[in-house]
């Protein structure tokens, strides 16, 4: 799918803008603080009905205004769909072909996008919680059963932690209840680990393809599930894992009571990025870490294509400048032709400019947009 047209009114620093995009690559070029990311943000809001940067919709309205409108024409397999998001102080309205949608959840999903922002680099460098959140978010979108198991797991975990604390403070002494809570936790924990492992395997496959492409076949990427407990070699049976977790809780019961906390389980797990047999979190260069984060995040493009039968739109916020020239071009080559790309950059060097096939270049200056270079097939949109 691709975005043909975008119309903004009073969004961030744009008072009124109407743009026609190329179905291939669109480059938003401009100095700092001119509104490049704001333009990407407006596309994000059009797709997700909320901003990736803020929860306060008032910030999205132009200074001194109390409303904002984003309209877009989206081309997909079925034809052209008109999408619209109206923001005002009372709330927001989402419209599909001028028809207001009763629920935002009905609206979200009409336009599929994947955004890569500089913050996403923390996927590799950040703490394990960033990676767990990534898995839970991405996987939860695909598998509602996973989401259910996760929510049950979290409730039982809270109960168990509270009970361990009560045992630690000697307020209670019934170990049978602890056993029951351990078994419950182990049952849902086993399901989560099995599903996460499988999801990582799928993701790893797509991410590796991308990593190879971006690095010109020089770097192989694998994702590996990391757990504090020794998992069975082929952990694809929840039943077997359930026994392993159960045993873990029995063996370390005194330790957990002493600390008053659940020390083992998927809520403590992580995954690592292995590039050419080496843990890139520990031994990788900045550039390698960035490439790995990018490959994993962009592997979602292919996962989504598998799921919905169409490529999503790719938003790359200031990502090129993080990579060397070769990696930049390989990255773009992996996606251009197939996926509509929007990318922001303060400047484009000539090499990249030549390598990007037929881009449409927009120069952004103080909330005004000028088409600097029309793509050859520019009239097709």
């Amino acid at each position, binding site marked *: 799918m691709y975005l043909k047209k975008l119309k903004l009114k009073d969004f961030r620093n744009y008072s009124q803008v109407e743009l026609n995009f190329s179905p291939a690559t669109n480059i938003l070029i401009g100095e700092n603080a001119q509104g490049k990311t704001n333009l990407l943000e407006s596309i994000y809001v059009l797709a997700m009905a909320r901003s990736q940067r803020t929860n306060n919709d008032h910030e999205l309205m132009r200074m001194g205004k109390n409303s904002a409108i984003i309209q877009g024409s989206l081309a997909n397999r079925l034809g052209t769909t008109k999408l619209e998001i109206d923001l005002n102080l009372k709330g927001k309205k989402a419209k599909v072909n001028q028809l207001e949608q009763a629920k935002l959840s009905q609206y979200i999903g009409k336009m599929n996008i994947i955004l890569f922002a500089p913050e996403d680099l923390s996927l590799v460098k950040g703490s394990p919680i960033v990676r767990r959140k990534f898995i839970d978010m991405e996987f939860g979108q695909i598998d*509602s*059963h996973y989401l*259910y198991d996760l929510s*049950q797991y979290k*409730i*039982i975990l*809270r*109960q*168990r932690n*509270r*009970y361990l604390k*009560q045992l630690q403070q000697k307020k*209670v002494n*019934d170990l*049978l*209840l602890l*056993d*029951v*809570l351990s*078994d*419950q936790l182990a049952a849902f924990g086993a399901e989560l680990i099995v599903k996460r492992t499988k999801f990582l395997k799928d993701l790893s496959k797509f991410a590796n393809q991308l990593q190879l492409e971006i690095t010109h076949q020089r770097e192989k990427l694998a994702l590996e599930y990391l757990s504090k407990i020794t998992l069975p070699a082929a952990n694809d049976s929840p039943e077997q894992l359930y026994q392993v977790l159960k045993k873990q809780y029995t063996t370390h019961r005194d330790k957990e009571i002493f600390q008053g906390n659940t020390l083992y389980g998927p809520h403590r797990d992580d995954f690592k990025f292995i590039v050419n047999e080496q843990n890139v979190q520990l031994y990788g260069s900045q550039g390698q870490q960035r490439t790995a984060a990018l490959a994993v995040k962009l592997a979602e493009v292919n996962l989504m294509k598998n799921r919905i039968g169409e490529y999503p739109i790719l938003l790359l916020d200031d990502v090129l400048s993080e990579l060397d020239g070769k990696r930049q071009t390989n990255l773009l080559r992996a996606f251009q032709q197939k996926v509509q790309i929007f990318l922001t950059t303060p400047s484009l060097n000539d090499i990249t400019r030549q390598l990007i096939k037929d881009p449409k270049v927009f120069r952004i200056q103080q909330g005004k947009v000028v088409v600097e270079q029309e793509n050859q097939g520019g009239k097709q949109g």
Partner: protein
Amino acid sequence: MQYPEPIAKLIDSYMHLPGIGEKTATRLAFYTINLPQADVDQFAAALQAVKRNLKYCSICGNVTEDDPCQICRDQSRDQSKVIVVEDSKDVMSLERMNEYHGLYHVLHGVLSPMEGKGPDDLNITALVKRLQTHPTITEVIVATNATPEGEATAMYLSRLLKPAGIKITRLAHGLAVGSDIEYADEMTLYKAIEGRQEI
């Protein structure tokens, strides 16, 4: 200006009830002023009676006027089965079914460390004692809710009672009667498939 004291007190009393805030309490209080004297007397008497005349059955824990309760006294009921429920309201729901003629046991809650409810805070000791003194009981049906806490309680009871050789069963999960598969959520369907039966 403040409300006259009798009204303020009544508003405050109404606010002790669950789900009633200040606005609703005020409306109820002013409505009470306009009620006929007889209705108000009846209301007050009912409120006091519920506290004065009701107690918990010493055998099953259900609310009752007389101890033991009607169900526990009824010898014509099936003395071999006990359904364990979270609270007295659940007994009424199950009785309305008119199909079950066994006994009940009310726990007054579920195991939830978060709310400070452990085994000692529930009516579990009485259940164990009851099973010891009534060997006629051969099956315990656990009918706690399908929440993580309800499941934990069911598991706890089964671990506790199974060693004594008592049959412990749990209510089935799955499709609601008369419902469309089309409208069932994924988890309900999953549970329904898990608990499928041969026909």
